[in-house]
């Protein structure tokens, strides 16, 4: 078995009486593409928020690369090599596309607290930023303000920013949410290339057809608890999973 990168133990969080995530224990291996699937409101994003440190669990533990990170801040987890994107587009909208990616690159390269050097003078940073922009197909939009980009482009920018961090593990929260159907394949292409580079990717989705071919492992979450996990083909034929998805229609229905 490969090395375990992220492991959760009995992870739970309650908001008042509502248990959004309930005793989830998962282990995610290095180099694998894992998809977390579940209907709307199943607690997928909450699980991500727990793993990335945005929320503190009421119970349970999170291990990253073997260390207990439950008490660490998001910043410390990012520095350990965890990168995440957001479901709702979360970019610096009054800065240019280029600057958005450059800032992510600057964080990764640990430029430090320099206060009188011009930011444009870091050559390797600028080159790498260009590379990322090319990778996510936004090179011709680099001087646009991020807020002026279309929704699909903002999703790509969001992904570009996380890629710039060169994380060991990439937590992607529905990267294609709200994208038009023509744009989805380019997104999948980018994901496929990233996977090839050896980055561990954990993806949240609620439509299965999109990720079936990409994923090495599927985890189904329903009502805050893990239902099943395993091989994509197997899981998608599991009767319990089909039931959770209201008779299974949603799972195999083509994306519209």
């Amino acid at each position, binding site marked *: 078995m490969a090395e375990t990168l992220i492991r959760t133990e009995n992870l739970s969080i309650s908001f008042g009486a509502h248990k959004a995530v309930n005793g989830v224990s998962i282990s995610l291996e290095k180099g694998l593409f894992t998809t977390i699937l579940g209907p709307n409101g199943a607690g997928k994003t909450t699980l991500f928020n727990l793993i*990335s440190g*945005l929320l503190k669990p009421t119970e349970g533990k999170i291990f990253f690369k073997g260390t207990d990170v439950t008490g660490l*801040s*998001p*910043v410390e987890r*990012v*520095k350990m090599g965890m*990168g*995440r994107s*957001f479901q709702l587009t*979360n*970019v*610096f*909208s*009054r*800065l240019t596309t280029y*600057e958005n990616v*450059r*800032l*992510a690159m*600057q*964080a*990764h390269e640990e*430029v*430090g*607290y*320099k*206060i*009188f*050097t*011009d*930011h*444009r003078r*870091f050559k390797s940073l600028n080159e790498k930023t260009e590379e990322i922009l090319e990778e996510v197909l936004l090179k011709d939009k680099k001087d646009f303000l991020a807020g002026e980009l279309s929704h699909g482009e903002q999703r790509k920018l969001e992904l570009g*920013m996380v890629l710039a*961090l060169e994380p060991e593990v990439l937590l992607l929260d529905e990267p294609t949410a709200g994208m038009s159907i023509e744009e989805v394949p380019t997104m999948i292409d980018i994901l496929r290339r990233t996977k090839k580079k050896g980055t561990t990717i954990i993806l949240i989705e609620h439509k299965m057809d999109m990720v079936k071919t990409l994923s090495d492992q599927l985890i189904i979450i329903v009502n805050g608890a893990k239902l099943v996990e395993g091989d994509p083909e197997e899981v998608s034929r599991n009767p319990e999973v089909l039931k959770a998805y209201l008779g299974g229609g949603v799972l195999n229905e083509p994306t519209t």
Partner: protein
Amino acid sequence: MKLLNNMDKKTFLALGVLLVVLSIIPHFSKLSTITLISRIFILAVYGMSYDILRGYTGFINLGHALFFGSGAYIAGIFFTNFGNNLVVFGMAVIVTVVFCSLAAYIMGKIVLRGGGVIAAAMITLALGEIVRNIAERWRSVTMGADGLPFKIPDVFRDRIGFYYYALIFLIIMTVVLRQFILSPTGRVLMAIRENEQRAEFLGYETSKYKLIGLQVAGIASGLAGIMFGILNRFANTDLLSVQQTLNALLITLVGGTGTLYGAIVGSAFVNAVQNYLLNLRSVHPIFERWLLFFGAMYVIVVLFMPEGFVGLWNKYMKERRTKKNTKAIEKGL
């Protein structure tokens, strides 16, 4: 020079002309005008220091005057107790820099512990008031509410000479603060303004960056305070009050927040209008209440020109550029 490369020829020429005009002005003006313009220069720096916080970091500091007033008081206390020469002036500058960065550090540690922008603003308001109260009660040093008049070094005594010092001060501080905004740290501050949570998820310790921003702004404000003290040869508790903080807010508001240079335009406008209204006293007694008109003006600015002068100008230039581009494309096709 690196700095010149970044500017295009037109801007360079315009700045050159402006500089020449500004250096000639004092030789053709009344003393009161020279003082007014010196005041504009100094308060422009104060406004820019505030813009670093409000415009670039998105942090509302209602106690910002405490740095400004402290600068003026430190200069006054030093000149009164240790003699009015340039060595003491140098000491006052060093002490102000140390004091302001320390005060900003303490303020930051208290304010930046999380919590919203409003909560932070309220705490800074309280901290500012504490400092103002200390200055008011510590009569043996500060002369309390009467204010502290003091003698200044001879070099600063000539109004025309001091005008040039103020101009040089403005130029140096503009270059320094611009460089700070262009630095990696300055860029992170802008990211924090846009979306602090996202900045954290890129791996930035946002509170550390905000602390640095606060210290830079505090030091710049303190230095402006020294110059303001020397200009008036007087420091009083008004310089530490919320009113003084609001002056900075209004200067950046009128000039344009998040533009840095906006503070220079804002300072010129605010001070010129204030001066003009005050002079109208002799025309009609209602102008004794000049604040009345001043207030109305701010309401109008906020309603019809929320981006301020420089913001409006940038918008206009951008539109013109887009129009030019579209025209060029149409021609090309």
